[in-house]
């Protein structure tokens, strides 16, 4: 039975519970619903929830856990000799999965599988015909594992369907059996709903756990294959897909910081001065259209900035500055990416700074103006120092944004890992390398691929640290004037 059909059956049972629970409640009260503790619908909802929720939870958990258990069992069937040189468990397992999937397709078409599973060349041919391309003829133990996988999958599926249906029916029965006038159905359904609400807010926590777990787990895997010392202290980045790579993080960190620094050099003065002008000088009318207009910059997807860097800014900088000055002839460069990223980050600096400058009490401005200070003296000597912590927070948030930005650097900064000071040279960043190491058909268990997770963990830690620091500073600052 397919999962979709199972879902439909459970939903049907729940709907039945809804109607039957309601009817039973009305009947138990002798038709006078004032005798019921709760409205009749609550009795229906109670039965429906009991029928559907436990069954669905079971299905979800089962579907998530099933591959792990079954594939481990299937993997144990493969003899180590059948794992080719230079390959790994995961690669062989993906073959097993594809063969199993192909066999399913063949079975669905009514093909006789019995002769195929003993004859590797025929199997390969049949699978190819079914659209499942295999590189070489599968070893007998691999075929056996695929067969075992299929068998276990169908058994597991059968058990899951059975258990889920039993749970649904049992829940339905129990829910209906509890329908009595004095039963507090509303309270019961509401506490049930409350748990549902709590469960939804836990998604955020689970996401974080998922991020941290996947990063840490794969990073640990990476450090088993590649010495952590070389990763953290080597200054060369030179992945070789034949092995013997140098995977030092420093050239990438340097590129990231260089690009982000240029972005901030562009964005902080422009953003801060715009915020000051909007908060202190601009008329209400000007403010009402300029502020949203600048914020459009934050709403434009980063791919647009990436394309802008690639087709406009890069060639422009190359033809007008880098080449005439003899600084290089690459259109992707740290300067290109930094400049464009700076434009992107302007609204992050200006919006937050604007809020923060507005939070500085008017009495301080009055005090300063009342002493005969000009508005700019007031801004520079009273307002900005008072707002400084908040502005630092805004700049840190912008920095974290710049460090984690991907598309602009992928399209604008280049791919060469270099430790150079020339901003018109192509360099690369942590995010660019995460993309380049994880896209394309690469073997998943090699250090060259796994290094992306170590890079991801570095990036995550760095941006998280900056965010927490920034939020802490901004919050402290807000408290000061509340």
């Amino acid at each position, binding site marked *: 039975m397919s999962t979709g059909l199972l879902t439909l059956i459970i939903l049907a049972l729940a709907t039945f519970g809804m109607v039957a629970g309601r009817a039973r409640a009305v009947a138990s009260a002798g038709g006078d619903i004032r005798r019921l503790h709760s409205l009749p619908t609550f009795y229906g909802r109670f039965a429906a929830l009991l029928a559907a929720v436990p069954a669905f939870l079971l299905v979800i958990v089962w579907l998530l856990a099933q591959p792990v258990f079954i594939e481990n069992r299937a993997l144990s069937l493969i003899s180590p000799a059948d794992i080719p040189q230079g390959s790994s468990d995961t690669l062989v397992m993906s073959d097993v999965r594809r063969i199993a999937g192909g066999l399913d397709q063949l079975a669905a078409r009514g093909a006789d599988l019995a002769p195929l599973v003993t004859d590797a060349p025929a199997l390969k041919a049949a699978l190819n015909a079914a659209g499942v391309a295999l590189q070489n003829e599968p070893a007998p133990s691999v075929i056996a594992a695929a067969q075992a996988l299929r068998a276990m999958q169908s058994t597991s599926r059968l058990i899951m369907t059975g258990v889920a249906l039993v749970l649904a029916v049992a829940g339905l029965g129990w829910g209906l059996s509890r329908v009595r006038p004095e039963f507090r159905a509303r309270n019961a359904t509401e506490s049930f709903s409350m748990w549902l609400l709590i469960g939804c807010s836990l998604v955020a926590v689970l996401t974080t756990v998922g991020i941290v777990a996947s990063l840490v787990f794969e990073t640990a895997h990476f450090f088993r294959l590649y010495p952590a010392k070389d990763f953290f202290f080597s200054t060369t980045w030179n992945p070789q897909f034949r092995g013997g790579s140098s995977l030092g993080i420093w050239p990438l960190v340097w590129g990231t910081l260089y690009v982000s620094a240029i972005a901030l050099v562009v964005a902080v003065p422009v953003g801060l001065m715009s915020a000051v002008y909007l908060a202190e000088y601009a008329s209400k009318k000007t403010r009402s259209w*300029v502020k949203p207009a600048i914020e459009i910059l934050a709403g434009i997807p980063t791919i647009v900035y990436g394309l802008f860097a690639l087709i406009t800014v890069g060639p422009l900088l190359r033809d007008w500055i880098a080449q005439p000055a003899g600084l290089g002839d690459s259109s992707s460069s740290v300067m290109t990416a930094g400049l464009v990223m700076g434009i992107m980050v*302007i609204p992050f600096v200006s919006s937050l700074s604007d809020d923060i400058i507005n939070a500085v009490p008017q009495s301080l401005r009055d005090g300063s103006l009342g002493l005969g200070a000009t508005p700019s003296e007031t801004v520079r000597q009273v307002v900005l120092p008072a707002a400084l912590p908040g502005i630092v927070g805004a700049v840190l948030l912008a920095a974290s944004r710049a460090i984690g930005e991907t598309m602009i650097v992928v399209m604008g900064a280049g791919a060469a890992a270099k430790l150079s000071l020339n901003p018109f040279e192509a360099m690369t960043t942590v995010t660019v390398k995460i993309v380049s190491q994880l896209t394309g058909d690469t073997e998943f268990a090699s250090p060259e691929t796994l290094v992306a997770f170590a890079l991801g963990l570095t990036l995550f830690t760095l941006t998280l640290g900056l965010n927490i620091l920034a939020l802490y500073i901004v919050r402290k600052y807000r408290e000061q004037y509340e």
Partner: protein
Amino acid sequence: MSGSLFTQDARTKARNAAERRFRTYGLGAIILALLALVWLLISIFSAGLPAFRQTFITFPVKLEESVIDKAGNRDPAAMAKVTTVGYGKLLATALEAEIAAKGIDLAGVPPKEITDLISQESAATLRNMVLADPALIGTTVQFRAIASGRIDGYYKGRVTMESAALDKNTSPEKLRLADNLKAAGLLATSFNLGFLTMPDASDKRPEAAGLGIAIAGSFMMMVVVLVLSLPIGVAASIYLEEFAPKNWFTDLIEVNIANLAAVPSIVYGILGLAIFINFAGLPQSAPIVGGLVLTLMTLPRIIIPTRAALKAVPPSIRDAALGVGASRLQTVFHHVLPLAMPGILTGMIIGLAQALGETAPLLLIGMVAFVRDFPGGLFDPAAALPVQVYNWTQRGDPGFVERASGAIIVLLIFLIIMNTAAIILRRKFERRW
């Protein structure tokens, strides 16, 4: 200080000059930011608008039964055996015949190379046309072939006689022949609907590349994001805003949400790759995985405005409902939630718009793959609008720059529509308590 108020001393003059300079810097910063925005938009639009126009060459093609269906029994399997090469020859002969019939000057183009004027994709288009409607065989149809990338570029100013002289894919003679065809009414440039409906095309055929699959894929992902993140986001916000007790656990969730909103999007891509693809075994390039990843990314960005909308509903409404004996949950679902709904929907639309433009996480879950077939469901391979842009920028042919910029215009139009909807919603239902 004792001087007259009517005369400014030197120091005051200097201070006022500093004041004017400071103001100018502020104004300059704003103008700079706005100019950057205008520059960005002009650059993208000027590069991308030509993608919406396309040069076509229209001529009659006799669909020879002897070529397409040798057996003459209209057997689909046998007909499918005829490859695009066969149809290509058909087109070449037909075009050559038409040129000869109209007496158009070949401008020095060898007859064998006339076919270079039309896209290689045309043969496949013709083949699909015939396979879909075998009754056409033996008749003569007026066929509108896409002109090749270089010819198309010539009429958009991308290719010139000088650049054509250096280009091995075309020659000045062919451009002149194209001009002759245009004079004879065979060649014309018109609106390019195919850009929005056709699938991607291979590296050598920018003129045939379209956004059909990317739009379909993006649409599917948005449906997944909407279906998952609206209920989960609203439920989480309701819990945190209305029910959560003040304790370490609630704090943990709140800190979590604040930080997740600022986690770089590429990290969500890594999460998707590790959990959904490697661990749960979901297929690569599938809209379901993209949708899940974008949902996780969008959730915190939806929860924050949703909570603000709930908070904006005054406590007096809650007191009134609780006062007539409604339970806390009834109060929220009957009174608070409907009142907060416009704010929630506005936040939701803006969150969706952000998700629509997101690229980096989708690169990691395989959405860069070259997909030619429209996805039949959430588990089939598909492309996505922003990823398609990236994909096209990685190709060699300059025609793809135009396509990529055109795709961005499509993306921006979707975003403008969504944001306008959000603004209208906010204006229409905004309430001041």
